[in-house]
């Protein structure tokens, strides 16, 4: 008794699914602009005073000029529309602290964080999902207990403290790790292609720079990996356990396939959706983690920039960071949604 009412545009189910997810992501991004803008306008502390300092702020003329220059004297709705208009031109305003356009500040900070985050997420997925699966297959045995403890420590240890401890031990005491920053002071940043020093150095053939950049990545990277891996081990373990209880795994074993075949073709495919979900979440907490660790390692990324601008009430910069991180996070989740649709035929139908 199925009746087809009208035919939609001739799109495959996957294309339609992706289009819908994309639409939702765009709406969310608009929501994010609204949130960053609203929050910035809630500020009870006077940004004029914060930017100009006590003395200048006591002169009404200077304050008025500042407010006009920043557009703070106009109605809120107009301010928002102006803000959106500027966004479309890639204009995030001017930082009240660095006096640079926020876009320019972010274009320096963003690749730094991207390099760290990519390094961490790739390692974490490999290690986290691998160990989580292993633990699930050895449920309640020694490896399982061991990984559970390690992942428990990973998610329970304060990232900023771990960063500090790692820096103290491996740099200050053991001298194994290089100091703060992304490169040693003696080296020049490689010519900018992607903004990721390791990749740019390889592109330029500067192998010394590459190894140096890599060695700087390792310590902050490992600190963040421990946390992200902790999260991934926990959740992929339980996702795999869920799938192991599915009848299709029993059926696959009844076929006499090799254990590896059952695990890779049946179990991991079945667990891939929840694992992807948690990868998205882990990426979010990784971005949070960078804020707390970049400060310690003087990394000069988005995290450190966010910290500086938030503590100094640098409104345009705060809005810019919130927006960029929000958009990155939404896009990550969009990509994950698309992957869902590609690997699970049932998702497209809904």
């Amino acid at each position, binding site marked *: 008794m199925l009746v087809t009412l009208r035919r939609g545009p001739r799109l495959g189910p996957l294309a339609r699914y992706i289009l819908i997810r994309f639409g939702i992501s765009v709406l969310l991004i608009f929501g994010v602009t609204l949130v960053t803008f609203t929050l910035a306008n809630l500020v009870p502390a006077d940004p004029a005073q914060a930017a100009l300092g006590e003395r200048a702020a006591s002169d009404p003329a200077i304050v008025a000029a500042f407010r006009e220059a920043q557009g703070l004297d106009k109605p809120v709705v107009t301010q928002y529309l102006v803000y959106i208009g500027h966004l479309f031109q890639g204009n995030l305003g001017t930082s009240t602290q660095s006096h640079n356009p926020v876009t320019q500040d972010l274009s320096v900070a963003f690749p730094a964080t991207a390099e760290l985050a990519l390094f961490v997420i790739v390692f974490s997925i490999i290690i986290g999902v691998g160990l989580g699966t292993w633990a699930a297959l050895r449920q309640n045995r020694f490896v399982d207990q061991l990984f559970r403890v390690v992942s428990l420590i990973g998610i329970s240890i304060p990232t900023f403290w771990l960063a500090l401890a790692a820096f103290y031990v491996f740099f200050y005491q053991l001298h194994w790790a290089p100091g703060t920053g992304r490169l040693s002071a003696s080296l020049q940043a490689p010519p900018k292609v992607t903004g990721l020093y390791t990749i740019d150095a390889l592109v330029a053939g500067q192998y010394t720079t590459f190894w140096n950049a890599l060695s700087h990545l390792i310590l902050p990277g490992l600190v963040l990996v421990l946390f992200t891996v902790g999260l991934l081990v926990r959740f992929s373990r339980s996702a795999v356990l869920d799938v192991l209880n599915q009848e299709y795994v029993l059926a*696959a074993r009844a076929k006499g396939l090799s254990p590896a075949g059952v695990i890779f073709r049946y179990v991991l495919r079945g667990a891939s959706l929840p694992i992807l979900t948690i990868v998205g979440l882990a990426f979010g907490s990784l971005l949070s983690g960078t804020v707390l660790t970049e400060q310690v390692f003087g990394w000069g990324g988005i995290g450190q920039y966010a910290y500086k601008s938030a503590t100094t009430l640098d409104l345009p910069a705060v809005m810019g960071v919130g927006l960029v991180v929000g958009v990155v996070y939404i896009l990550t989740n969009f990509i994950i949604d698309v992957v869902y649709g590609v690997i699970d035929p049932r998702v497209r139908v809904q």
Partner: protein
Amino acid sequence: MSDTTPHGLSLRGLTLELGSKGSATQILRGIDLDIPAGSITGLAGESGSGKTMTGLAICGLQPAGSRLGGTISYTGPRGSAPNLLALKPRAMNALRGREIAMIFQDPTASLHPMITIEAQLTDGMRHHLHVSRSEARTRALALLSRVRVPDPETALKKYPHQFSGGQLQRIAIAIALASEPSVLIADEPTTALDVTVQAGILRLLRELCDTLDLAILLVTHDLGVMSALADTVTVMRYGEVVEHGSRYQVIREPQSAYTKSLIDALPHPPAAVPDAAAAAAPVLGKDAL
């Protein structure tokens, strides 16, 4: 073993216990059961009788941490094993799917929702028979026709959710038969299906048993299904065999009080069918005795 040994499976004193040594639960308490080739052996019982666990134990798919005892001997056209329980895991895995295959109650759960029918149908035979991708595909098409899934070419490209329950169970049977096994364990193969769909599956199982000389173990709680399909019937309760005999004998002249109570609980006990009519009735399929 000599060629005169009848093909099939033979269980002797099969026991299975779960849980730690101190507080173990006996799931199976010494099952004797013969599953000869070319015949459908019925295993009946209520929830918790251990009938499903018997089927799983034959395939070596008992829960981890359970302990098995007794023997399961196997004789097939390609070889024999005096005791499956004594085999190394690797050897048992080579047998599983190749010599002894299994189908489950709910095909929507026993097929992987994210893998195409082609992949699920061919991976077993590619593993066991080492056939090429294209040959596997040809075999898969033939199997789907054999279990009468319409339009096998298209069916191969589809995913499980695109089929009805009855079609899926046919596909699951095709998957089980992919490596030409000689034993098929069917665990409640029609319980999740509608009655009109069930009839088709029952006929298919009978036909496959007769034409392929399969040894089929039919595990079901439904005495109607049992009566339609099984040649011999074994009734289990609390992990023990309470009655064993030919289909007619167990259903019409049950010896144990428990079997009697099961049969009396039916909405239409067989007594309603006159014996004279029974004797004269045309009988489809084989009669074991």
